[in-house]
């Protein structure tokens, strides 16, 4: 999205809805929490667009997303659940064979389950890096922490994750 253009709310919903949902789902493992987060983020974006100054739109959006996520966690006063995905079959792309689909689902389930065991502060950085696709600098701005902290958290998160994945890769 062009940096010098203020997107409409519909633009945000269309372009970032899936990413926001995937971000929340990978962090919580709960489809309902992920849906709630998408709605909350879109509401905040709708309110915030009126005062938004063209700049780094994605940085602004992911800060809103992260804050909404943390607020939701605090409000519900519960740790993210460990519900395994049941709608993780919504893989979009070429038509794979049934065996490939099943293998992919098992793989996704294993990785999702392992992710949920990684401490939230590490998981958050790993997801922002590898699911959302942000740079270390962008993650740093999003979570309001130094780049060195981001680097350390990503590294530790990956190390723990690899230790939790038992299947051969």
């Amino acid at each position, binding site marked *: 999205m062009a940096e010098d253009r203020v997107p409409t709310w519909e633009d945000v919903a269309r372009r970032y809805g899936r*990413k926001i949902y995937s971000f929340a789902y990978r962090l919580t493992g709960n489809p309902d929490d992920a849906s709630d987060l998408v709605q909350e983020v879109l509401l905040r974006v709708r309110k915030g667009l009126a005062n938004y100054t063209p700049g780094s739109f994605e940085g602004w959006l992911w800060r809103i997303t992260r804050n909404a996520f943390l607020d939701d966690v605090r409000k519900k006063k519960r740790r993210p659940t460990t519900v395994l995905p049941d709608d993780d079959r919504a893989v*979009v792309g070429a038509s794979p064979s049934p065996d490939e689909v099943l293998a992919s689902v098992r793989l996704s389930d294993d990785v999702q389950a392992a992710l949920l065991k990684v401490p939230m502060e590490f998981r958050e950085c790993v997801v922002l890096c590898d699911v959302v696709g942000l740079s270390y600098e962008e993650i740093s701005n999003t979570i309001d922490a130094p780049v060195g902290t981001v680097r350390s958290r990503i590294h530790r998160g990956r190390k723990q994750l690899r230790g939790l994945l038992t299947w051969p890769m």
Partner: protein
Amino acid sequence: MADVNKTESMEQAAFTGVESVCDIGELMSAYLDGELRDGELEQVVAHLTDCLECIAEFHELKEARTAVRMLPMLQVPDRVMPAAHYGPELSAFLDGELTADEQVMIVAHLQTCTDCLLELQDLDAARTAVRSMPGVEPPIPLMPRIPVRSQRTSLKRLAIAAAGFIGAAAIAINMASSGPEATPVDLDEFADRHTVRVSVEDGLTGVPIFMHGSTP
């Protein structure tokens, strides 16, 4: 014994997130992500050349990173974004003018959104209707005049130009020879003198020919 302790600490690090015994630790993830700062790249590459433990750890980090990156992007439930429909993108989608990512998003959306599917069908019908209209010939006066340059035409023009040049030269010579007070030219006599048939059989010879109405 020292190696055993080192191996144990490495294994423990893999499960607890404690840094490995080598000091390049988190630089390896940054190396994977292309996020190293100045001077760090040489440090990591030099270390990975010698340290087998870190090479193994590097591969494990890469596997973990790949596992997360391979997770599929999820589809947002319809109830979450009921108002998010595709408008202008649908025509671009029909014309194959979207990026691969945008196409994937629209294909996924069309599987669940009846409104956008119907709009796409309408757009497709309109597009097909326009494309199936017969071509219309433009009015002739609007057609640009395109010169036809065949070899025959060019030779003809050259012959006309040469004849014109010869005629002009003949008149000029005649005027020069006659002086300022030119005498009238007797055309029959002029023709008798200048109309010849050229024969090359026995050398170049001029044979008088006779104009229509003249006597031999």
